[in-house]
């Protein structure tokens, strides 16, 4: 949650440097706030989904609507994050590892989708186990994204 620690140039690369104190209610600072909240939410949601899915595996339950709904929420959050990162790239921001970042932007939203199909094909406790992997992977991917481009604050 260190969005306040970024200099204005990092908060909004396309904006001219602020002459006086950084304005609080501009579009730039708004985006910066969201870009810290969404990744953190994804990590929490991914870990919660993984915990719930592992509980289902331990209780010998099959795939259910709750797990699919959780995957849907995770997918929406990931798509929002991808949109925000793409907006920042269009705005002129460039990370050091741009090819890696683009690979992550393509692969990350596919994780819940593929895990949902692969897990739904299984009619045993191992279906939820696949969903648990997807939740953990989503959390790890956010940490990696932060390492690739520290602008994506956690």
């Amino acid at each position: 949650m260190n969005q306040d620690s970024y200099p204005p140039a990092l908060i909004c690369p396309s904006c001219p440097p602020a002459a006086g104190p950084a304005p609080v209610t501009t579009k730039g600072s708004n985006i910066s706030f969201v870009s810290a909240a969404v990744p953190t939410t994804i990590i929490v949601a991914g870990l919660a989904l993984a915990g719930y899915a592992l509980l289902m595996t331990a209780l010998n339950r099959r795939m259910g609507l709750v797990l699919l709904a959780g995957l849907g929420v995770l997918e929406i959050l990931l798509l929002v994050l991808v949109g925000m990162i793409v907006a920042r790239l269009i705005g002129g921001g460039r990370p050091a590892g741009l090819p890696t970042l683009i690979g992550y932007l393509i692969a990350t939203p596919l994780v819940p989708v593929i895990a949902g199909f692969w897990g739904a094909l299984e009619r045993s406790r191992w279906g939820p186990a696949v969903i648990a992997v997807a939740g953990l992977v989503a959390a790890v991917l956010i940490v990696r994204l932060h390492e690739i481009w520290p602008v994506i604050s956690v």
Partner: protein
Amino acid sequence: MSEPIPSPEPAASQPDSTRTGPGRLLVAVYGLFALSASARAGVQIATKFSHAPVAYLLSAFAGAVYILATVTLANGSPAARRIAVLSCSVEFAGVLAVGTWSVADPATFPDATVWSGYGSGYGFVPLVLPVFGLLWLRHCARRAAAQRTSMQPDEARMR
């Protein structure tokens, strides 16, 4: 692992046996590593190969092994199971060899591979994954063998 070559497995014995049950989870994790290792190696070889050539080539090799294991585990035919045993064995030997190499001679690895430090950058999943893969394949081979032996009296009766 000494199955008679000309006798194909009966259709009743589930050719997809290695991808159901715990195999569902194994294929998912193998697929994840197949994608991440090969994509990472591809980017690194394309953009900065001279920085750490040994590490990047080993990453590409690991990615190929993971792809082979994913495909054969998801297929599950007798021939695919044998290739899966081979690729999981190569994978296990690779993790141990590269892990030891990276600890003994860090200068060769200025950048990490999937297998350096015994997979420490990936939560040591690369170290335990081939063990579970081989255990699961042994379980499936025994199950298939049991089905074959229990099938023979039925077939004899039908004739």
